[in-house]
C-alpha cells in the first residue's frame, strides 16, 4: 500500500556536474515544485554504492538524471514528461 505522501514524492537522482540534471532541477525550481535531490557523485563511498544499486535496480543503467515521481520513473531530462506527470 502506497501512502499519499509516497504517491506524490518526487526524487531526482543526479550528478553534480551533469548539465541535464541541472536542467531538471531548474525546471522543478522554476515551477516551484518541492522535490528531494541526491547528487550521487558527492555521496561518501558506502552511501554512493547503496544509491547506485537502487538506481540500477530501478532503471537498469547508471545514467542521470533519474526522476522518480510516485510510482513513475524515467532517465533523462524530459520537460514534456515532467509537465504531464506534474499536471503543469
Amino acid at each position: 500500500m502506497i501512502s499519499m505522501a509516497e504517491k506524490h514524492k518526487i526524487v531526482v537522482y543526479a550528478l553534480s556536474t551533469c548539465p541535464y540534471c541541472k536542467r531538471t532541477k531548474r525546471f522543478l525550481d522554476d515551477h516551484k515544485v518541492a522535490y528531494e535531490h541526491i547528487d550521487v557523485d558527492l555521496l561518501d563511498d558506502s552511501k554512493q554504492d547503496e544509491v547506485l544499486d537502487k538506481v540500477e535496480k530501478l532503471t537498469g543503467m547508471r545514467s542521470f538524471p533519474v526522476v522518480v515521481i510516485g510510482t513513475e520513473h524515467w532517465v533523462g531530462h524530459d520537460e514534456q514528461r515532467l509537465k504531464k506527470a506534474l499536471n503543469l
Partner: protein
Amino acid sequence: MSDAKVERVYCPVCLAKFKYSEGWSEGSVVVCPICGERLTLRKTADGWIGDRVDRGTEKEIRSRIDGFAEIRGYVFNDVKEDIVEGLLGKYKRFGDFYCPCRMEHVPEYQCPCKPTRGGDVEKNGKCHCGLFWKKA
C-alpha cells in the same frame, strides 16, 4: 619499403601514440590528432611525450574540445557551456576533465571519452553527453 623506424608521440590524455611529423622538435606545441589536446613535445629515454599545455585550466579544456570537434568535423549546440562548466567541476572535485555525465573517474572517460574517440558520434549522432554532434 623503408625500414626507418617511425617515431611516435605519447599523449597523456588519450593514452595513445600518434605519428611524429617532420619539422617538429623539442618544445614544439602540437595538437594530438586523436583527442585534440595541445601538447608541448619532450624527448625522453622512452621516446617522445607530449606535456599538456595549460593543464587544468578552462583554456585547456576549451582548446581540447574545440580542437577535437575541428579534427572530426563535429558541431556543438547550446548545451556546450553547461558541459564546460560540468567539466571544470569534474577537474575541481575529481582531479581531471572526466565526462560530466558519468560516475566513473577513469582515464578512458577523459573528455573526449574513449567511446567518443571510437566513433560513438558517427553511430548515435552525438556523444554520451551531447557535447559533440554529427553535422546534420
